[in-house]
């Protein structure tokens, strides 16, 4: 049930119609049932896995909170981490690592074979696993308490708007106010109708659908045209424009999903955190990670980077921590060497900027800021090549073409025109709205006529400029 499908909107219309007529306690049970129905719609065989993970982490959370022994606490935390990562590893990484292991053995003359696990990757497993783990870590650190009952925790894990592709919500621990209202805390509190819930929800949903349907899917057609072609049929400029298109595809696709999730949740009186803040306006790698997939980057920062030592321990230790964090962040996206190298590349970028002291240099003028934005965008795009390429051979071919073949072709011109037509209005809008407010909600605080104009444009584009093919959200595969 994709957010950009009619089936989802029929489902949601039924859910919200019933939801607001129910008393608070029943709302929780009803939303939990709806969330499991939503998840089971993908494949009912995924349900036992999420149910098991939920049971385990709920009871481990209670046990961690009830013991005063640090050793026991640590044991329970390790149990949760081990089982969660085993589940993730089995479904997501087993075949990749076993293949690589066998290849390595074969290369040194040892003939070996390991069984292949033919299983579907449960959608959203990376997201809800990380969310459950953050809950366990926060209880162990003593910054939050366990859920008041199992049903609230089950809904916290499975709340359908963000179940498949985030944002990875925190429970609502102390010191996490910058990440918005914790989801578990909201679930445990009776909903209150806010006067702007409808307007803000509508805005998020419309913006998200526009990003996904108009930009993401149309960019996908361009990206596939370039990346599915033999390199001998491409020029370097076409490769570059294909990567630009992917930069907009993945941003529009993923931030579109997050936006729709925020809107749908908001209509149910629940706030989900902002997962993106105009990432292509970043002026440095750390600035980019403060704007891109914020729920994952803050998770990695809080539970991995800081656990490794963070900024403590001097230069080399910090660089080591950065590299480990980013490589694991890359692997989180999937079992492929391209993701490993993507993480490695971003770790190297962060380290380089830190070593050279460029992170702390504030832009002196608009021109200074502009060229740093353009430079950063192109550095990010280089990373997207690693992210999107089918394999490292394709990465090499694209890099070679971009270095040697600068022929401008009608295909490249048309693609640039299409990127400008679809993505430039969004970029201008997001620049404008973030310059007026701390987030993307600037428009909701504008006069109604401004909203009407923007919404009319978005709706007309949604009707007329749908892509020839509708695609799944990219992050569903993670």
């Amino acid at each position, binding site marked *: 049930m994709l957010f950009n*499908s*009619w*089936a989802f909107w*029929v489902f949601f219309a039924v859910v919200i119609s019933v939801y607001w007529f129910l008393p608070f306690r029943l709302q929780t049970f009803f939303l939990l049932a709806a969330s499991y129905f939503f998840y089971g719609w993908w494949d009912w065989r995924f349900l036992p896995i999420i149910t098991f993970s939920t049971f385990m982490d709920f009871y481990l959370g209670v046990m961690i909170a009830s013991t005063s022994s640090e050793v026991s606490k640590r044991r329970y935390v390790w149990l949760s981490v081990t089982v969660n990562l085993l589940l993730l590893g089995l479904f997501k990484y087993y075949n990749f690592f076993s293949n690589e292991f066998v290849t390595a053995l074969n290369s040194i003359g040892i003939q070996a074979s390991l069984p292949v696990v033919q299983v579907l990757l449960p959608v959203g497993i990376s997201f809800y696993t990380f969310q459950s783990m953050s809950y366990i870590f926060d209880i162990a650190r003593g910054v939050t308490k366990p859920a008041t009952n199992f049903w609230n925790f089950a809904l916290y894990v499975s709340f359908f708007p963000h179940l498949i592709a985030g944002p990875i919500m925190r429970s609502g621990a102390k010191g996490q106010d910058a990440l918005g209202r914790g989801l578990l805390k909201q679930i445990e509190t009776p909903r209150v109708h806010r*006067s*702007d819930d*409808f*307007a*803000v929800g*509508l*805005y998020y949903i419309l913006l998200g659908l526009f990003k996904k349907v108009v930009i993401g899917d149309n960019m996908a*057609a*361009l990206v*596939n*045209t370039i990346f*599915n072609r033999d390199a001998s049929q491409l020029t370097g400029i076409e490769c570059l424009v294909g990567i630009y298109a992917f930069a907009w595809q993945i941003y529009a696709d993923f931030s579109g999903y997050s936006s729709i999730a925020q809107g749908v949740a908001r209509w149910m009186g629940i706030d989900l955190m902002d997962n993106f803040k105009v990432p292509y306006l970043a002026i440095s790698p750390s600035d980019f990670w403060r704007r891109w997939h914020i729920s994952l980057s803050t998770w990695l920062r809080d539970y991995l980077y800081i656990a490794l030592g963070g900024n403590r321990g001097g230069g080399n230790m910090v660089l080591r921590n950065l590299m480990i964090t980013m490589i694991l962040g890359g692997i989180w996206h999937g079992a492929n060497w391209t993701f490993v190298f993507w993480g490695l590349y971003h770790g190297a970028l962060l380290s380089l900027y830190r070593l050279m002291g460029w992170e702390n240099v504030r832009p002196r003028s608009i021109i200074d800021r502009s060229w740093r934005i353009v430079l950063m965008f192109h550095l990010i795009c280089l990373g997207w090549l690693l992210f999107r390429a089918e394999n490292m051979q394709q990465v090499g071919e694209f890099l070679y073409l971009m270095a040697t073949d600068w022929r401008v072709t*009608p*295909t490249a*011109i*048309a*693609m640039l*025109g*299409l990127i400008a*037509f679809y993505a430039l209005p969004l970029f201008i809008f997001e620049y404008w709205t973030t310059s007026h407010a701390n987030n993307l909600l600037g428009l*909701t*605080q*504008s*006069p*109604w*006529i401004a*909203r*009407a104009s923007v*919404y*009319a444009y978005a*709706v*007309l584009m949604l*009707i*007329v*400029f*749908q892509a*020839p*093919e509708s695609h799944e959200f990219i992050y569903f595969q993670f």
Partner: protein
Amino acid sequence: MNSSTSNSRSEWKVIASVLAVLLIGEISLYFTENRLSYDVQHIGQIPAIVNDIKQGNSPRVLFLGNSLTRAGIRPDIVKRAWAGVNLPDATIGLIYPDDTVLTDWLYVYRRFVQPANTQLRLVIICFANDHLDDGPVRNSERLGSQFAGLSLAAEAFSHDVLSLSDRVRYLLGATSRLWANRERIQKRVLALIPGYQEFAPIINDVVRSDGQAAAHAKPPTYNQLARFLNIVTSDGTKVVFVATPVRQPYPLPDELYKAIRRGGAEIIDLRGFERTGPGDFLDSLHLAPAAAERFSKALGSALVGNDYAHTALWGTRLQGYRTEPSGSSTVGSGMAR
């Protein structure tokens, strides 16, 4: 928050304004729809085409298809091929909405041809690739708006438009001109982007090959074809399918031959008609004018030389007639198996 910013009341003003814009779009299209494309004009003319066939002399023939028919069939040349062997004149009508397949043709027949009681002798369908295969409806909004309409919605929903998404799109297409014409408006606007006209076929090929790769994962079936033949032949009309040449060769599965035979129809294989080079095609699908002339002549001769078609058109079985040599051995060799 002041009164002009978002609250429930001002949000209803916003929604009302958006609806007003959509209404203006609907009204504008009501008056300007025909200028969007030649295809829209052609679809608008279908009732008149059917009426012209009805008013014409027997035998009456309908070419029903898509742009393969538009680019490949020259009715004057087909008739000339018949006149060349002293066969009586016929009335030929052509219906060829762009980018359509068997499901669309079925509903064009059901909605426009069948109720007019045209007493057709023969329906000729020029096809290629997977045009006759069972498969999901390619364009539900066009089916709803232009081919089946609300009047045949129940039939479409029970046989062809099965998913919720497709049904919603069908109904939107049937009720909104903006929705029904969105692809055409899109093409007109995007054509303003430099290089788009050359780039669009490349994108289409990628999208099409993605779809074909998925479709070819399992062998094709022909239940829809059987249904179409049942409807048309029940009206006393014969059907000939013509395998039409396109740039890339394509297979004709045995199962297709069997389905056509079972349905009481005929297939003529002209995939291998005489080619002179790459100039025979305007693009990957459509014949260039000179090649279309040769193809039409070859088809005219093939219809004369085919027992089934000859009987359908002129009421007598073929006796000792041989097709006029068209310089192409492939026409003869490509006759029905």
